[in-house]
Each structure stands twice: as C-alpha cells, then as structure tokens.
C-alpha cells in the first residue's frame, strides 16, 4: 500500500493514457488492451497526476476550481485506490 502524503507527486503509469471519448461521453483511462470509464471527479483528479503536482497542490487547485472545501480525504482515498490498481506511480 503506497502511503500518500501531502508531498506525494503522482504520475500516470507510462502504459496508461487518459482521454475524452465523445462516443462514450466520458473520460476514459486506456491501458494495454483495457479501458476504465472515469467519472468526473476521477478524471479531474487524474488530470493533476502529471508529476508536477503534489497532493497538497492538487487539492488546493481542485477546491478552487470546483468551489468546494475539505476534499483532501476524498482525494487521498481515490489516489490510494488508483495506486493499488497500478494506474499511478511516484
């Protein structure tokens, strides 16, 4: 289990790619011979998993963008899930 700290700077696994799919009207995560349909919040968080945002920074940006507060716990929980599934690496 990857320990997520405020300084953790995740990147997408290089085998994975996220893109908007018009036919499915959603973002999807593409990987070798597979695909995961992402809901809006998953897509929003993953967009910041570019190796240039710490967890702290992405939470700040997301809170500002979506006019919400206190999302850190939810974001961390999602990131743990994403790490576990091999979507992310540090």
């Amino acid at each position, binding site marked *: 289990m990857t320990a997520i700290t405020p300084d953790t700077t995740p990147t997408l696994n290089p085998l994975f*790619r996220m893109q908007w799919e018009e036919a*499915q009207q959603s973002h999807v995560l593409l990987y070798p011979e597979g*695909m995961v349909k992402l809901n809006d919040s998953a897509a929003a968080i993953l967009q910041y998993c570019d190796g240039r945002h710490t967890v702290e920074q992405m939470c700040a940006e997301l809170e500002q963008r979506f006019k919400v507060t206190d999302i850190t716990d939810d974001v961390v929980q999602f990131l743990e899930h994403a790490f576990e599934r091999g979507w992310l690496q540090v």
Partner: protein
Amino acid sequence: MDEILNKAGADQVGPPLWLLAELSYRCPLHCAFCYNPVDYSQVGTELDTAGWLSVLSQAREMGAVQLGLSGGEPLVRPDLEEIVAHARSLGFYINLLTSGVGLTPERLDALKEAGVDHIQLSFQDSTRELNDFLSNTRTFELKQRVARMIKTAGYPMVMNCVMHRYNLPHIGQIIDMAVEMGAEYLELANTQYYGWALLNRDLLLPTAKQLHDAEAIVEQKRRQIGSACQLLFVVPDYFEGRPKRCMNGWGNVFMVVTPDGRALPCHAARDIPGLVFPDVREETLRHIWYDSPLFNAYRGTDWMREPCRSCPEKEKDLGGCRCQALMLTGDARNADPVCSLSPHHHLIDDAIASAASMQAAEGGCGDGPARVVARDPRVQPVEAPIQFRTNPPRHLSR
C-alpha cells in the same frame, strides 16, 4: 477487459470499443496452437493500405478506441508504420501484438514515432526458447535482443506465453526466463481451442493436475518476484466448469477485421462453416456492426436455449462462446459445453480424458530439455502428428 462497460443487452447496442486488425495471416512461425484459420481456401487477397486506413477511420468514428494490430505477424506488412500513424492521428490506443521476429531498432523507432502505445511480445515456441535459455544458445539470445530493444525504446516489456501440455511443467523456468529478459508483465495464457489449437487439441490439452501444479508455481513465483514482474495466469475454460463471458458478448464491444477485409465478432469465427462474413470492401463498418445478420445473430439473451434461457447466471457469462458451442455441439444457440450445466458437457470431459490417455501413452509430456528437444517441427511423432500452422498461398499477399 472486465472493466470495459457492461452492456445490459441487445436493447441498446453500443459501439465497437475494441477493434482487432489482423493485418496478415502470413507469419514466420508455425505454432501448433495458433487460432488462425486452418483452411485458407476461403480467404481472399489482403486489404491494401487504403483499405486499412478506411477501416480505422470508420471504426474510430463509431467510437472504437482500443486497437490491436495482430495477424499472423503484423510486422510482415511494410505499411505498418503508416497504419499506426493513421491510428494515432485518430486517437486510438495502439497495441502491437508481435513475435518480434523481424524487429530491428530502426523499425522499432519508426513504430514508436508513428505512435504505438504498447508492445506485447509473444513467446513463439517456448519449448525451444526454454531449451535455448537453459543451454544459453541462439534463439533465446535473439529474443533477449528484441526484449532489450523494446526496453531501450522506452516501452515496458509486456510478454505473452501460450501455455499447453508441453510447457506447463516448465512454467517456473519460463517465468525465470521472462524476468531475466526484464519483463514487467507476463501473461501466461493457457491455450484456447480454436483454429490449429483445436486441430491439435488431443496433443495440447493438459491434465487438471498439470494446471493446478502450474498455478501453485505461479503463486510461489509471485511471492518471490513481487512487483518487479506482474504475472497473469489465464486458466483454460475447459477446466472451469463455467464458460467465459466470451468477447464480453457477441457483437457487444469487439470487432475483428481479417486480412482479407472480413468483419467478424471474434477471431475464432472464421473457421465456422456456413457463416456469411461481411466484407468491408462492400459495406460500411457502421452497417456491418449495427445491421448485419452476423453481428445481430447472438446479441443479448433472446436467442438462448435452455439451460441458458432460464439460468440465473446468463447475464454474467452470456452462455459462453458461440463458436465453441457451434463447433463442438453443432448449434451456436446451445450452451457453451464447457459449462457443467450444459447437456453436452461430456464432450469436454471426453476431450480431457482423451488427451490425458494420449499423454499417458506418450510416457508423459517431457521431464526436461532432452525430451522437449524432440518436439522439432521437422520431426513428426509417429503416433499422432502435431499439425504446425501453415501460411496462406503467396498470391493473396500485398
């Protein structure tokens, strides 16, 4: 595959999210477990570059996003880079499924530049490779070079090894071999019985014990290796008692286009007699997917016979594989006989028993390199010759 959208049924036919482009049936290899057609008499000339570019554009426009480039061996096509570049410009996620035979650093760079996202390297003859690995000789070195090339180009090493009676006992060494080559993912795919594999089934089917022993070794290796290499062991449906949700459903998310431009709901359907395969040179992909009799034949669950019709699990596995039902029971509407609830399940038990007794007659499947070396394609065993895959006639090539 299990994470791809789960469609409720034929009420709402979704797009073909997955396109498998079989660029050629030509291949430098002669694997006895190949699912390519055994009868090339019905196969026409290969689609040209323009034909493939059109297929890709049409499929993408319909919503296809995962692209598999396969065959035969896709590297035999000199226009592969052009096909890849076009697929990339359309936004496909591009999977190249190759044996690596013919791959040079220059070609690999060109393919990377063109936009290949993932390369899956297959073991073509794991017994020979295993032999060479153990004796440190030629073929293994070639495969190692290709593996290194792939890693140098910045791709993770994703390997695929088809498993069967002759290499299951050596699964530990095969895993060691893959790890030594730097594989980050290794798929140990027990062969399914289509095409040449079905022809050779008596010789390829393992016993249940061989499978369990192999699975135990995989577990052990997983603990030893950890996250350095992810191992995936795919159990053959003959031993599962329940069928696979084949292709995630007939005409549900998956479409294959064959080297001669026929559209199929799965790559195994080619060998089935009596089916009409729509031709992409004559019809649009949209029409083929949504309107053709072939693609609509087994969508949803209304076509089902008993026991599938009333089965509480029918939405889970959709009755299994239509091709297998047709080839083994004579009717595609029957339950896939691998299901223990199928009245034809004895066919599977019989096949397993027949293969087991053949194995016993051979004196086991091979305990080490000495016995395994004898499995040379030029040396046919007298009792029951294994039939090695052949190539289509030259005049069909592009």
